[in-house]
């Protein structure tokens, strides 16, 4: 295992042996390389269209270390721009969200319309003698943007595949978060504001936690004992665990992964939200509709997952998306969006709001447990001695299934059935397999492994 003090090199992620060097979490050099290799090339979540319903609406988001503006122009078109003036780099928008006809740089006054065009240059006639080519100096726009069922994704690399291709079969699993609960076209919307907070750990700690790591459930023992769940016990309604197959699913060539439950054929989804008859009835009805619309796929119940590299999905109880923004090797800025069905009755939305904030975010009882783990794990991994000793990712190696099927339902991806095993690090290995591929590949020609015959750059050990 390699030791401290240098940037990325092959061998730090050793999936053959199920070992990963602590260097990838604590090295400043590797962190700097990640910005170019990962965050400048991967598709990243920037927000939801319900945040910018009207022309001129904007929401300041982030892509890696970059501040970006998600906005809707006068014509209704959605854009994502680098939040940096082309003249001297000052942020042209310092509000979190709002509505504006122009983004004006407070430094020298250059001003941009909501479609990114440079429309105001102080002393354009006098100082520039009307010769500055304003068309060349609009805001920097992302190379690609995708509105996927209301969720907005962007990419700086024009050579990257489309978002749908980037997702591959993982679209089935992302849909569990972004579709309305009944599986129809009603859509979802943001509930309240975005929670944002800083934690002193590398962004990959929360990223791997949300890949479907259930091994850390012991950390949440106190929350389960307190019974913060919406039926008064545990932290979530999880009756399906008694009868469902519990799976970890990885998309090897994409780097996305999630946990899911698959209900037995003919078995309805167990009741939930017992603390509110209105909410309970709403979800019972939605589940029935979902089964009717999606047939056998309606047997699948979502569980935490991750779109590579840093977008956490929490499809159910609470229903949220989190982004782990890198802020140096030793700090992460967490942003969490909360979702509800647009068409849900106000009583349902109110009930969910209370439950969501009780569970997640900086004040959420469950997320506090997680943060404590990440913070201290990171701190205890930074020393020169600690760095010499890799982490273990051996759990469940060799027990995955390529063509998993249960009671007539084929599950896309490579599956680890943990119904009896209880836990596996299958999904975590997938995150780092793809991470290493991104760190090594010079371009998307190599990263789009599914377009050519043969294996990926980092040979799968499993």
């Amino acid at each position, binding site marked *: 295992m390699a030791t401290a003090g240098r940037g990325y090199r092959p061998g730090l992620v050793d999936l053959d042996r199920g070992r990963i060097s602590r260097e990838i979490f604590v090295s400043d050099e590797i962190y700097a390389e990640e910005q170019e290799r990962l965050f400048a090339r991967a598709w990243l979540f920037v927000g939801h269209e319900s945040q910018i319903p009207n022309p001129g609406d904007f929401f300041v988001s982030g892509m890696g270390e970059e501040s970006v503006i998600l906005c809707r122009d006068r014509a209704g078109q959605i854009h994502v721009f680098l939040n940096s003036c082309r003249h001297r780099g000052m942020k042209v928008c310092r509000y979190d969200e709002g509505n*504006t*006809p*122009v983004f*004006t740089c*407070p430094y020298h*006054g250059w*001003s941009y319309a909501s479609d990114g065009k440079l*429309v*105001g240059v*102080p*002393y354009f006639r006098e100082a520039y003698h009307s010769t500055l080519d304003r068309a060349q100096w609009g805001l920097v726009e992302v190379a690609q943007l995708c509105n996927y069922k209301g969720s907005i994704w962007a990419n700086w690399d024009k050579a990257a595949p489309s978002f749908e291709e980037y997702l591959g079969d993982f679209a089935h699993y992302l849909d569990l978060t972004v579709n309305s609960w009944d599986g129809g076209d009603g859509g979802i919307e943001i509930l309240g504001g975005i929670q944002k907070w800083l934690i002193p750990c590398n962004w990959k700690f929360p990223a791997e936690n949300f890949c479907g790591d259930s091994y850390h459930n012991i950390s949440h023992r106190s929350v389960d004992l307190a019974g913060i769940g919406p039926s008064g016990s545990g932290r979530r309604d999880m009756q399906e665990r008694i009868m469902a197959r519990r799976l970890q699913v990885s998309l090897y060539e994409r780097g996305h992964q999630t946990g899911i439950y698959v209900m037995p054929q003919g078995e309805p989804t167990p009741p939930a939200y017992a603390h509110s008859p209105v909410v309970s009835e709403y979800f019972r009805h939605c589940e029935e509709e979902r089964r009717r619309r999606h047939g056998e796929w309606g047997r699948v119940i979502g569980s935490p997952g991750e779109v590579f590299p840093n977008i956490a999905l929490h499809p159910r109880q609470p229903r949220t998306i989190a982004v782990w923004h890198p802020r140096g090797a030793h700090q992460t800025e967490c942003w969490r969006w909360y979702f509800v069905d647009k068409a849900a009755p106000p009583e349902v939305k109110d009930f969910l709001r209370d439950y969501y904030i009780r569970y997640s975010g900086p004040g959420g009882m469950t997320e506090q447990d997680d943060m404590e783990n990440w913070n201290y794990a990171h701190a205890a991994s930074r020393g020169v001695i600690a760095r010499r000793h890799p982490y273990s990712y051996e759990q469940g190696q060799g027990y995955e299934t390529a063509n998993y099927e249960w009671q007539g339902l084929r599950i896309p991806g490579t599956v680890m059935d943990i119904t009896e095993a209880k836990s596996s690090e299958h999904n975590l290995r997938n995150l780092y397999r793809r991470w290493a591929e991104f760190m090594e590949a010079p371009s998307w020609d190599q990263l789009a492994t599914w377009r050519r015959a043969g294996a990926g750059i980092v040979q799968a050990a499993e």
Partner: protein
Amino acid sequence: MSELVNTRLLTPGTRIVLVDGAVAEVVSNPQDGVWVFARYLSSPTDPSVVGSEEMIFAQDIADITAS
């Protein structure tokens, strides 16, 4: 000497005098403290801009005039 104009307070319909002597009427105000959108009513240095709408830089605004 006239007082410095606070552009954030300029409402649509307000007439402003620019440092080159032009007069314009405020059309809208993005409230950024830097620009207002205004239509030229007169311009001694460039009559061709009369009638056109432009973004007017705060430091080019000399005064507010009675409409």
